[in-house]
Every structure is written in structure tokens, then in C-alpha cells.
């Protein structure tokens, strides 16, 4: 199998398949889930059966349905965070690289400072006063994550701006917008796409970790991280309920990482052929 002229390795194909299944679950949850996420339909911890494929949870809700709705929440939120973080990071990063001077210095020092602290810790500080509201969560995490995107897009743009074909455009008298969209962006697109995958998996794990710690998405909305938290005490009783959402988190992240690994590999090979 080939995609844009590149051979798709089997881990990459598996990754694409995992992503597709998860997106399908997230988008189609209301249609394919047998029950609603908050509906009590059976007794607590009912064994898996024909009507409840994965059994029931502590309050007698259908586990499969919660898992499907959880996908919606966990994936949707992470996508939102990553998109927002990319918009902020790319715009500021490219501006810093092209404008140079004090704009670059100010933005870079601010980002250095943000990166001097573990982002989980900084998120804790903000959440402790603002509380765990979904909007707060999204904005906070996007801002924290955008520092990494800033670093990458600034470095990419710096390298590209130093190339002579960009110098030619500047000598010709082209404006900033032309230079960003026509000269810099096409060359930065491939690494940025790979980075999007990487940042998505970070955001996804981050949101899940926060929910697991009880500081992320609040009940009754289902999401994978808080499901692990809700069911964790059952491990001592031999009930495997917490492993379903935890496993789902792991599988999706593995899928994304397989695809990112493949993207990075074809990029480095692409350079080799040109040289």
C-alpha cells in the first residue's frame, strides 16, 4: 500500500486503522452506543452479557456505552486543545522567526520561562484557583502546549528563512504574508503535521491524567481518564473494568505514535534522496 508515493509500513497501517476506529466511535457515539452514558440500565458490576458486552459499572451504567461516549469527550477535547495550541504556536513562532529583534527576544524568553516548569505543575496552579471548568481546562492546556509548538515552528522558520530562495523573495520585495504562505509554510508543512500528531497524543494523555487525578472532566460526563479513576478500586476484587478505558487510552496513543514515527521516517528519508 502506498500513500502520496510512500510505502505504508504495517505499524503505520495499524496506526491509521486505530485512529479511524476511534474517530468513528467518537463521532458516532450517540448512534452506535446501545444506551446513554448516564442511563442506569443494570445492577452494579453486572458481568458482561449479550445486552451489555462489557458489563456494567459501579452505578449500573452500560460500560460499552460509557466507553463510546468517553471517546467523544477525550478525543474531541484533545483535538480542540491541540488545534488551539497550534494556532497560537505557529503564528507566534513564525512571527518571531521572521520579525527577529525584540519581538523574537521577548516571545522566546517568555516561552523559556514557561518551559522551565513542568506543565502539569503549572496547570495545577491555575486549576487550583479557577476550578475544573472545561473551558478553563482547554485554554490553560492549549496555552501551555503552544510553547512547544512555538519552539518548533520558530526553529523551522528560522532554518527556512535562512535559505536563499526566501532571500530571493525578500530581495524581490515580497510582503510578509507572501513569504509565510508561499515560501515558508510549504517547507514546514511536513514536520508540522508530524508534530501535530505528537502534540495530540501529549494533550490526550495530559487530559486523561488530569481526569484520572480528579482535576479534569467532571461527572456525569464520561471520559476515559475519570472512568479509570472511578473503577480503580475494583482491581483488588479482580474486576477488569478500569482496564477498558485505560487500554483505550493506550491503544489510541500507540496508534498515533505509529503514524507519527512513520511520518518522521519518510521525512528524514526524503531529505536523503535530495542530497
Amino acid at each position: 500500500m502506498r500513500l502520496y508515493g510512500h510505502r505504508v509500513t504495517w505499524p503505520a497501517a495499524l496506526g491509521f486503522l486505530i485512529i479511524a476506529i476511534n474517530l468513528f466511535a467518537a463521532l458516532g457515539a450517540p448512534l452506535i452506543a446501545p444506551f446513554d452514558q448516564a442511563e442506569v440500565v443494570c445492577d452494579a458490576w453486572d458481568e458482561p452479557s449479550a445486552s451489555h458486552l462489557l458489563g456494567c459499572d459501579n452505578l449500573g451504567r452500560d460500560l460499552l456505552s460509557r466507553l463510546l461516549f468517553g471517546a467523544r469527550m477525550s478525543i474531541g477535547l484533545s483535538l480542540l486543545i491541540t488545534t488551539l495550541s497550534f494556532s497560537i504556536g505557529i503564528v507566534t513562532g513564525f512571527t518571531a522567526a521572521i520579525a527577529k529583534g525584540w519581538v523574537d527576544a521577548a516571545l522566546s524568553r517568555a516561552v523559556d520561562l514557561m518551559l522551565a516548569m513542568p506543565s502539569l505543575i503549572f496547570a495545577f496552579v491555575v486549576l487550583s484557583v479557577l476550578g475544573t471548568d472545561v473551558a478553563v481546562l482547554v485554554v490553560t492546556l492549549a496555552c501551555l502546549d503552544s510553547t512547544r509548538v512555538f519552539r518548533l515552528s520558530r526553529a523551522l522558520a528560522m532554518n527556512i528563512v535562512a535559505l536563499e530562495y526566501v532571500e530571493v523573495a525578500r530581495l524581490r520585495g515580497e510582503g510578509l504574508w507572501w513569504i509565510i504562505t508561499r515560501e515558508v509554510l510549504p517547507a514546514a508543512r511536513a514536520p508540522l503535521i508530524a508534530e501535530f500528531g505528537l502534540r495530540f497524543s501529549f494533550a490526550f494523555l495530559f487530559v486523561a491524567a488530569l481526569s484520572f487525578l480528579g482535576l479534569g472532566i467532571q461527572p456525569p460526563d464520561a471520559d476515559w481518564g475519570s472512568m479509570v479513576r472511578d473503577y480503580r478500586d475494583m482491581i483488588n476484587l479482580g474486576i477488569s473494568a478500569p482496564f477498558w478505558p485505560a487500554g483505550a487510552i493506550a491503544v489510541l496513543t500507540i496508534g498515533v505514535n505509529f503514524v507519527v514515527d512513520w511520518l518522521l521516517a519518510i521525512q528524514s528519508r526524503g531529505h536523503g534522496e535530495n542530497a
Partner: protein
Amino acid sequence: MLRMIGLRLALGVMTLFGASVLIFAGTEILPGDLASALLQNNATPENLATMREQLGLDRPAVVRYAAWFGGALQGDLGRSLASERPVAGELAPRLRNTLFLAVYAAAIAVPLAIALGLMAAVWQGSVFDRGVNMVTLMTISIPEYLVGYLLMKYISVELGWLPTLANVTDDTALGERFYLTLLPMLTLVLVVIAHMMRMTRASVLAIMASPYIEMAFLKGIPKWIVVVRHAFPNALAPVISVVALNLAYLIVGVVVVEAVFVYPGLGQLMVDAVSKHDVPVVQACGLLFSSAFILLNMLADIAAILANPRLRHPR
């Protein structure tokens, strides 16, 4: 070179200062103020006024920051809003526990990761390398709590070899501590090792691709000497950076792992404080975690400066 180290030290101090400002500012950004956030529905005007005075909110932010940071430098971290006891006293045993776990995990993970990374790089493209690549790509994707619960389920619940929870107290003996924290430590090691190993491998490979390594082979020098004498001294600086970078995952990992194993550490304290809006405790924990992180990065950079022959032997 001393100048560069001095500069790096100064930068570290400045960063620490900057981080303290950020932590303080982070608690100032809410639309109303802390008092109304804490009181929520009980916010009568009188209550608010009392609360504000109690928290010192009637003073300007700069003054409060100076008082807080000045106190923190002298070991006074304020009083907890929840327990009303001094934060420093509550923190100390927790900090000891967390440091114990982190150092325990790092002591095992760092040498193991560097050794595995070196081996994968030296045998690049071998079955070992490919296998390790695949396994680590998967382990970096698995969240800490899944690793923790899987270990707990199989090692503790089914085999019964180790306790499920790490119930250490102040008077737990050292040997007992090692035993009780074995499972949390293993979880942390598994989480941290993958990243550290992959990056070690990448930086050693970058060195192995350089012309002076080819030159060493063309001089007929056996491979192990090339690796040990030619590649390793040059790989040292990047590997140190990799290790420092990945100890950040350790810090984050500690928070989650403590929650999984109900281990009385700093992370647990911080998570509890966040959900209780206990701002002084959050600030104190944040400052401690950030200081550890900044200190690690600074030490790594200084070690990298020391390992660079161009800086050690100026023209």
C-alpha cells in the same frame, strides 16, 4: 568556561525567580478574587471582607508576592487554608517520601536506559534494535496508571508478591520502605526508561554518523574502542541533556504514580490541595517541583559545558 558556568548559574537563579512570579501570578488571574472563589455561595459582603483580610488580599499583589517569596526563601511557606497549620511542616515528610521514590527510580532507570540506548545504537538495525524500538514506542504511549494497575493486578493481586498500596509512614524502616515502594518504583522506571533510551540512542547514532568515527574505523581501530574512546566522550553532553529532559517525565510521573499507589508524597498533597483550592499549599508544592526541575536542568547544562572539549580547552 568558568564564565559560561557562572552565566548558567545566574540564569538558573533568574529562572527560579521567574518561575516563582509565574506561580504567584497563576493564582492571581481569576476574574473575581480568591476570597469569592473560596466562599462561593456563602459570599456575603461581611464574609468576603473578613476572608480578604484573613488572606491579606487588601494589600497590593506586589507586596503580597514579596512577602510570600521572601518567606519561602526563609522556609516559611504560609499557612494551609484547609488545615490552618504551617505549610512547611506538612510538606517536609511528604517531600522526603517523594524524593525517596524519585531518586530510587532514577537510580535504576538512568543507567539502564543509557546502557540499553548505547546497545541499540551500536547494533543499529539489528533484531535487538528493532525490537527495542517497537517496545519503547509502545511503552511511551501507555499512561502511567495503566502500567501501575497492570503491575498491581498481576504482581500483587494475582501473585500476591508485593503489597498493592505503598503505605509508608514516618517510622517505616528503610528496608521496609524499599520493599513497599518497589511497585511504584518499577512503574516509574518503565514509564521513564523508554523516552530516555530512545533519545540516548538517537544522540549516539548522530555521533556515530560523523566523519571522525568513519576515520577511526579507517584507522583499523576495533569497534568497541571506537565506541568507548571516540564516540562516548562526544556523546556525553547530548546524553546528559537527554537524561535531564526526561527526569521531567519522572516529576510528572511521580504525581500520577503516587495517586495510583496512594503513596503519601508531595504529588498527592498537591492534587488534594488543588481540589480543595488550598492555594498556599499549591503554591508551595509548585515552587518545590519547579525548583527541582530547574535545578536538574541547570546541573545538566553545567555538566554538558564541562564535557565539551571546545569549551574545556579554549583556543
